[in-house]
């Protein structure tokens, strides 16, 4: 086998447990199999191992209780953020006049709008990173598959949720191809997919070192699930106006409270980092599992 084939085989074998990966690749090296035979053999073993894992309920709970709602929540938020920021962006970029800068009121409004947009972008990126982190940290053995499915769901969100609202008043903005087609995709890749991928990688490292406590994971899953349900309902309401589905005051209060709870894993990691800074790495807040 050439170097490229070995690299491909090594990448596939990363889906196996570390101790098994070494012995399997060693057996292949010793037997002198062809690349096709080796790839077929390792693929077969990976499928058997994953199939055995997915016979349990935990990966399904993660997939249906976290991967799907989180991807939907992030997709909807990504498009709301993109559409919401496209309007002020269009106002400033496409209608820019330098003379406006002489007006103090214009400068104040520009600063306010820029701050609001940047905070929305930061919030979306932080949610995506945290989501990836939690997913990656859940189970070392299924995190790669769940992570891949999550990223696939996020990538498909560009197509599935990529229809901006055709509101008459915003027609001039969304009639520009960049704001209608490209801008939501840029926001989705830059503020959702890239941070989520980074989070998944970080989470996989955490899972093999000191996983997040179960109480934080359970709380986080419940928060994401309810937020996703409310967001999907509201998203449908915006598309198909129906008074019965109108967002309630209770829901907006709940969403405001849950907005804070989304950062729970980040707060925990920060607290753990501070604890280890003062008391050494042994004084981490959770016990190592498996």
């Amino acid at each position, binding site marked *: 086998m050439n170097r490229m084939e070995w690299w491909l085989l090594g990448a596939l074998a990363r889906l196996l447990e570390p*101790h*098994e990966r*070494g*012995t*399997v*690749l*060693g*057996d*292949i*090296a*010793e*037997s002198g199999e062809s690349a096709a035979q080796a790839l*077929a*053999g*390792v693929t*077969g*073993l990976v*499928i*058997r*191992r994953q199939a*055995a894992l997915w016979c349990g309920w935990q990966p399904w709970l993660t997939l249906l209780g976290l991967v799907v709602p989180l991807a939907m929540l992030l997709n909807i938020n990504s498009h709301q953020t993109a559409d919401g920021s496209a309007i002020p962006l269009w106002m400033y970029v496409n209608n820019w006049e330098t003379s406006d800068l002489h007006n103090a009121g214009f400068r104040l409004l520009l600063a306010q709008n820029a701050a609001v947009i940047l905070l929305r972008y930061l919030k979306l990126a932080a949610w995506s990173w945290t989501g990836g982190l939690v997913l990656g940290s859940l189970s070392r053995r299924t995190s790669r598959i769940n992570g891949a499915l999550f990223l696939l769901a996020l990538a498909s969100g560009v197509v599935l949720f990529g229809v901006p609202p055709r509101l008459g008043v915003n027609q001039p903005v969304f009639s520009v191809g960049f704001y209608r087609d490209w801008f939501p995709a840029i926001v989705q890749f830059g503020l959702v997919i890239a941070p989520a991928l980074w989070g998944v990688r970080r989470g996989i490292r955490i899972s093999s070192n000191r996983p997040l406590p179960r109480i934080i994971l359970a709380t986080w899953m419940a928060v994401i699930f309810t937020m996703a349900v409310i967001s999907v309902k509201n998203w449908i309401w915006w598309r198909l106006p129906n008074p019965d589905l109108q967002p309630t005051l209770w829901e907006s209060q709940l969403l405001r409270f849950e907005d804070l709870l989304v950062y729970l894993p980040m707060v925990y990691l920060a607290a753990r980092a501070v604890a280890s800074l003062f008391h050494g790495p042994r004084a981490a807040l959770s016990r190592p599992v498996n």
Partner: protein
Amino acid sequence: MLGEFEYLLLTAAARLGSQAYGASIRQEIERAAGRRCSIGALYTTLDRLESKGLLKTHMGDPTPQRGGRPKRMVRVTAKGVQAASEFYAAVTCMTRGVAWEARREMAPS
């Protein structure tokens, strides 16, 4: 009762003794059965037999031939020997007097 592949694997491991590990067992099965033995089938069966207590495995030393990667060494336990003997007894008992037993005896080795 063992499955056919489980029996082949246990027998190959017993025959190889201290040299029984993934690649050598696979080679032995392929030689005896005359068909390909997939890595997936081998390792999942090894795990199953180990969980049943019919064999034990441990990590061996890495060798340059294997690119410095370790071997998964296999040892058949007393329970494994017992299970393989029972399977063999059942197969020979069942085969006695059947047409293909005579054909096998007549065939040149």
